[in-house]
């Protein structure tokens, strides 16, 4: 199986990781857990349905981050590329606006799905910086980002509230209304 071992290094939460020799078919989720000891990205279904394993991916650092499913993505496919996980959201020990909003909205209960929702939400916020949304389309945009995510504890209402709040309160994410 030696021929199946490859060297992997990614830009993880802003830091380039030391090269790791891992099996070619190792999944990104297992890479994060086993090689990087970052377990914030969660395993829920393993087949890309529940989206608890959502992380942000940029093929090149200048690209817009997009969500990918770490449970179903071979790490080889993102070798050398940029990955952001829930552990990378707080900046210098300051929670992101979305982390704070999710906390204050009591958006989650057991919290196991939370990293996936946060990553999908953060990616949405990033996208809205470049393509602001109409005020009356905010909920639609949020549901477009998290509509496939599974939360078994809550009814999604509070995740929606938290994300709506951040979008509405962050300058530049909502199109200015025409006078």
């Amino acid at each position: 199986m030696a021929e199946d071992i490859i060297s992997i290094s990614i830009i993880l939460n802003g830091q380039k990781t030391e090269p790791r020799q891992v099996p070619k078919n190792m999944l990104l989720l297992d890479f994060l857990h086993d090689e990087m000891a970052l377990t914030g990205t969660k395993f829920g279904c393993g087949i890309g349905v529940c989206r608890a394993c959502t992380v942000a991916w940029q093929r090149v650092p200048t690209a817009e981050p997009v969500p990918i499913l770490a449970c179903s993505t071979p790490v080889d496919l993102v070798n050398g590329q940029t990955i952001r996980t829930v552990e990378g959201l707080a900046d210098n020990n300051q929670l992101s606006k979305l982390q704070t909003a999710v906390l204050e909205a009591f958006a989650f209960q057991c919290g196991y799905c939370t990293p996936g929702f946060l990553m999908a939400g953060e990616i949405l916020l990033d996208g809205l910086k470049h393509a602001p949304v109409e005020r009356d389309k905010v909920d639609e945009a949020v549901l477009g980002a998290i509509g496939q995510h599974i939360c078994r504890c809550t009814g999604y209402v509070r995740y929606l509230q938290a994300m709506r709040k951040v979008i509405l309160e962050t300058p530049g994410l909502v199109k200015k209304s025409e006078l």
Partner: protein
Amino acid sequence: MVAISTIDKIAMPECRIAAQVPAGPQTSRREFLRLAAAGGIAVIVMPYPSFDVFGQTATGAVAIPSEDHGWMGPPGQARYRIDGLPKVTGAKIYARDFHARDLNGWPKQEAHALVLRVGHFNRTFTGVNLKILPPELQPYRTITNDDLVRDKIAGLWYDDPQPMFVPVGGSASLLGQPAAILFFDAAQKYREAVRLLQFHEDALLYGGDIVPVKVSEPFPRSAMFLTRFEDEFSQVKNGPSDPNLPGPVNELAHQFREKIRERMGSTGLKLYKQTYTTQVVDPMFLEPEAGLAWYDSASETLQLLLGTQSSDGDIASAGSQMGAIFHDSAFRVNKVVLHPCYPGGGFGGRDVSPFLALLAIAGAYAGRPVRIANDRFAQFQSGIKRNASTSEVTIAVNDQGKFAAIENHLILRGGGKRNYSPFVAQLAGFSAGNSYNFPVSSVDSKAQSTYGVTGGSMRGFGGPQAFFAVESLVDEIAGSMSLDPIELRLQNVLHEGDGTVTGYKLQGDVRLAEICKLARETQLWSGRNAQQAKRAGTNKLWGVGFALSMQAYGVGRDGVMAAVEIGADGEIGVITNCVDMGNGSATSLAISTANSLGANAGKIQMGEVPFFETNLPLESGGKSPRWNDPRWTASWAISSSACLTAFQQVHVVEQASRVIFLTGLWPAALALWGKNKGDLKPDASRWENGQLLAPNLPPLALKDIARRAFADGNIIGAAVHAVYQGKWIAADYEVDNEVYRWPLDAVATRAASTHPEEFVPANRGQWPLDAHRLELTPTAYEFHERFNTISPPPNSQNYGRSLYAPAGALVAVEVDQTTGHVDVLALELFLDAGRVIQPDLLSGQFEGGVAMGIGYALLEELPLETGGAGDGTWNLNRYHVALAGDMPLQHLKLNILPATSPDAKGKGIAETVMCPIAPAIANAITHATGKRFRDLPITPEKIRQSLGS
């Protein structure tokens, strides 16, 4: 979600191990107590991760911004969950997050165990086919039932006579039964093997087809019979009865059943009889069960790390079940060390899960630390399920729409293992009359054995099955009699003084009529026919349905405990055995100190058990109550449940706070004011903004009072235990030469002078987990023996349940005639929650309950046996739970009935918010389509068939 059985400290389930572990001088008091409890195996529980007021996570990864004052709101309120920060930062708190390398003192190399399970019950299992794996992927060890037999491992689980593993050469007693465990020495090797074996038809070898010998019999001791005839005969009055057995009470029950039949056949009554069925569903908590085990033969110690929803239950299991499994085996186990972790959801499915025993057996054979991490397929194949059910229900009604009698035969279909199915059937029986006043009733409920995956505890615990049947039939009666469904309910709901199916007479206003009236007044209800008419001629059918549920919380005899301590700086800590499954218990309990102490607790230690065993030396169990014995209690503990926080767990935190206030802080305050005891009563004071106020006296800051309490050696800690059985057991206690009456059955206090430098909550919950730090500091608590104990009400042991949280759901649906798809467009819930502890947590429970109710009504289904979860092919690609798009996000409204008094207590609502959702949806679909659906889930296919579309 609610464990029906209470956990007795001494009277554990039968344990066959002899007490061979010497309780020598090296054995701590904690261990000694464990020895007594577990019948020979010492069980040591490692601290649960704790969170503190300053927001430092367990891993110390992220601190709350300095301008942020953390989770804590004003006294009695929270800004966010106390356990919130680790959950938004990805900290390690779930069992799945841990590996052997994370635990101090463990060997770093871990094995990975793959459990192979049978997918057939009508074929002989003959062995494991390892030829599928190439040489480099072979497991280093494989065990089957042959190994367990050879090594004299019982492999049993509770009192189930069937072995845990399928015997080689035998057939399975349930689908998904373990056949073998394969041990791999590297994670990647394990993963490759899983890919090759998981769906391979020939991974397990089978002989010829056999005729299954098992028949669907009730589990032993699983049938319950409730017979009530007005005030003449009932369980409460006459005791439990079985009309099919001999004996005076049973024969009387038989006679009264005859009278009930006569009554139901009498002139002027019309009988409505239907049969309703519900499906198997999976709790689908998002973290599949995972854990670590390490058996160290040198020290004869087994360590287990897993997610828990019940520390007490897991400890009981670890003691008694490990004793049962390893007694006389090739593996000597003298000590079990449990490392509980926060559960990634529970919903009851982790309560007495067989996972613990499987993990222990894997641990014994692995020869090193071993990890079992179910994937979702394995979780579906092995995890506890909500029981399928059949309810054959008959209601007798007079021509005015008044209910005269109910007969309800409930069968709850469990899997091949008994587990909690009999208790689920029992609660279904107690729920068989739901919210209505039936002067006479006849209820049978039983749990049936099947070849399905094990059924047991899941949110609702029998209530959802019973309520779907009764609420559907009530609507059918209304339709048949051309009555408004809410009016019919209003005529028949229970009021104070009315009896339930056990004959328990309700105390206090149950507010069901109020709920009906509020629902009746809504535009949704009053305009339902007009809305329907508007859509006439379109492809969309509109309908509105209503349903009630009167879900019980608690188990009828609820033992609970808590401790509160205050530091010299006024910082408060709470210690509880309760586990937070995500329902918010930790937060709710942390803010429950505010009433008596004027501030929230900054620290909370969850899932704590040894502390209470040390400081509250109570015995429990026995044939007869011994309330005159101050060291006896009727119930030591009940399993953690989301429903037990608001009433039971909050009670003990509030009472412990009250004890500290009266015995420690109040004397300190008097001293600061220069007053004597007789000058001022505690009730003349009140807390405001962290200051204690009293007429014509200067405000006192909590920290100043606390400092004085420490200086004077006053009481600064209280550990209390309480039992609710029809009411809170109360007794007198003498503390510092003063007698107090408290609704508690045990009290211990700690004076500041005992260990002034030590603050108990601060020295627990250390991180990282450390297997070597096992000793408990000597107790600083003084136990106060109770006297003048007020026993529970007569016959309260027969109430069944006496605490209820009534709710009514109003649902609007739209049905697509072509596709059969149902959209839930609007939903309102009317809820009697008593006093609301934290509104955000409560409404979060409601919203989650709605999602789960929608899933139960419309989406979720697992075939019970063949083709069901036990075949190992189920995952979320075909088991659908509610997504955001299934929810009426913009039209979801919770109407909480205002508390009836400032002193009202909170109610356990986690289950009742879900219970009426499915029947209300079913009733709405009937309103929309004119067709009745008596079988859950109501799928598009069923609707299309019914509509002929």
